[in-house]
């Protein structure tokens, strides 16, 4: 048995503090989170975490159950890379002069499916998405041409066989809509309220 990359998809309420509750499930066991994304789901009021870790299947299975046990968690799935479609977005900042000077750079970017998002006099920002190896490869390729800045997003993933659950989720949100989250309305009122 070997450690393997697993993508854990967690459907939750959209509540303050839940991120920590879920994150501690990993840190408590000293498991490094490779990537974590929080996002809305197709059902309004239901939030979705996409978490990538490298672990043994046995560990991930138990972990998913512990996550699902949390009061505000609706469902936790774990999948191997074969069972999902995933992408990560990457942004690259490159000197515009460099690109203008060397036609090769333009060609390299095109070859890697990158698209210019912003073009300014001093720099250009390219965007690409794909698997980690692909976005990493472009970093490597751009390095000799003065890559100024690079950032990559967390993984977002869709489970190939999610049809059944998707139907249920919609139905669920319709019959029992989520509660509205109450945020702190007083943080900017420090000087106007009485306190002691």
């Amino acid at each position, binding site marked *: 048995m070997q450690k393997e990359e697993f993508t854990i998809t967690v459907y*939750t309420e959209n509540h303050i*503090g839940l991120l920590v509750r879920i994150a*501690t499930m990993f840190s408590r066991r000293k498991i490094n989170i490779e990537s974590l994304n929080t996002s809305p789901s197709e059902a309004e009021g239901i939030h979705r975490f996409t978490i990538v870790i490298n672990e043994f299947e046995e560990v991930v299975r*138990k972990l998913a159950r*512990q996550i699902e046990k949390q009061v505000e968690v609706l469902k936790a799935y774990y999948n191997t890379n074969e069972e999902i479609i995933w992408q990560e977005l990457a942004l690259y900042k490159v000197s515009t002069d460099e690109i203008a000077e060397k036609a090769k750079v333009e060609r390299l970017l095109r070859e890697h499916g990158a698209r210019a998002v912003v073009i300014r006099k001093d720099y250009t920002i390219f965007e690409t998405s794909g698997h980690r190896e692909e976005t990493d490869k472009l970093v490597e390729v751009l390095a000799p041409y003065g890559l100024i800045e690079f950032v990559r997003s967390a993984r977002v993933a869709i489970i190939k066989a999610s049809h059944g659950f998707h139907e249920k989720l919609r139905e669920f949100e319709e019959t029992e809509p989520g509660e509205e989250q*109450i945020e702190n309305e007083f943080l900017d009122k*420090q000087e106007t*309220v009485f306190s002691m």
Partner: protein
Amino acid sequence: METLATVQEPSLTKATRTINGSQAVLEAFVAEGVDTIFGYPGGAIMPIYDALYDYHDQLKHILVRHEQGGIHAGQGYARASGRVGVVFGTSGPGATNLVTGLADAMIDSTPLVCITGQVFAHLLGTDAFQEIDVINITTPVTKWNYQVTDATEIPAVLAKAFYIAKTGRPGPVLIDITKNAQLQQFEYEGYKPCSHIRSYRPKPIVRKEYIAQAAELINQAERPFVLFGQGVILGKAEKEFKTFIEKAGIPAAWTVMGLSALETDHPLNVGMLGMHGNYGPNVLTNECDVLIAIGMRFDDRVTGRLDKYAKQAKVIHLDIDPSEIDKNVKATVGVWGDCKETLPLLTKLVESKVYPQWVNRFKEHLEAEVTEVIHDELNPKGEVLTMGEVIRNLNELTGGDAIIVTDVGQHQMVACRYAKFNQSKSNITSGGLGTMGFGLPAAIGAKFGAPDRQVVTIIGDGGFQMTLQELGTIMQNEVDVKILILNNQFLGMVRQWQQLFMDKRYSFVDIASPDYVTLAKAYGIAGQRVNKREDLNGALSAMLNHKGSFLLEVMVGKENNVFPMVPQGCSVSEIRLK
């Protein structure tokens, strides 16, 4: 300057009335049937305490001496009564002092609702006086926690808190309420108890096919063995459990947390599991052919080495918490569900049987244990008193009807091994977390939770010194608890390990004690100290018959060990008798 406690226009309809957040908290308590609160006031929870002033005829508040004492009392209350324990603490240190008790309640599945005061919402994150991020500190040690910054949330949040704490696998819930929300006036529409949260499934759906599979395994078994834990008590399924083992004729052993779910004298009660458990149940775990675990979680202190644990057996695991099944021991058949529901279904399908030869094997092992360990522990030849004989004498006097609250260490293992119990919810101890200092405050809570019962707390000299400030609580509230200190002048369990596994290098286990009887006297609590056998019985009866609290210190053998013992890293069948 405006105040956050803005007064709203009073409502004209009779359906609502204007109250503040603090009153809403107490209204929730009254509606939930809370009768006792254990707590300690402070700046950030003062509005709630102010409201409490007007509720004192409906809600009893016990002023403890330290928030840790408060929460352990809440735990003792919950464990003795089967209801939710309620605890108050202020912000900052008040909240951090609750953490040990929350962790203890979390690992031992004790239903608690803790309310902490918090600084004003606008001060959150400013390092205000007594501000601490209690939500993030307590996240890993609560079943659920929530911060309230607006009073209108309070009724629904409190309803959720009680519902979450007591349903499913119970656990502690902490609600942090900012001071502005406590003061804020709002239109109160009454309290609606919570009975459903969309993302929370307290009980998994019972799958009848697994019950059928489990019954089939049991019916084919030749040497079936039942292990039961606190799940039977928490599920209030003692009767269903007994009916099941009696019909199926299966010998049953308990975890420390399951103790008292089945009376000690029951013919199928074969004793205690685990590190200091009985010889038979440990050895025969590795000889049974079907192992039926009910409401227990295969803690490492129960299983010893997992790769040599019951490998020959088919395992049936009944638990309300799906994440417990296959967590430590792989189940052949996992039966998810509340054992109050699953046990009767299983009982219906199992054949009525007896296993005289198999049950006899437990008896044979017990005889060996009596010869090697128990006889001398309960009837020592030497002059020095043993912990075991103190418990034996206590059994004779209580008849097994008392609630026994223990602390943590050697005395705890001895008390669990030898104390006699006739009814459930009678053994209150810190099982999972092993919190020294649990005993005294938990006993206070137990007395409030079961006021008609005799409460005896057995504590070591180490653990007693961790929370002895709660003698003040006993004094002020005239709590009738009997405190039995078994003093071996050592941190005995650690010393035992140092003796057995660390070459007798007694590193910082030699602990001095104050004069406990004089200390008790300072608190107005009667006391006695015993170091001779001839005085023991008289002193124990004096303690039990005394009107009000009593402290009895019994000097026991300094270097006595608890046996049998499954040494760490060993299999349960490698249990040592000496």
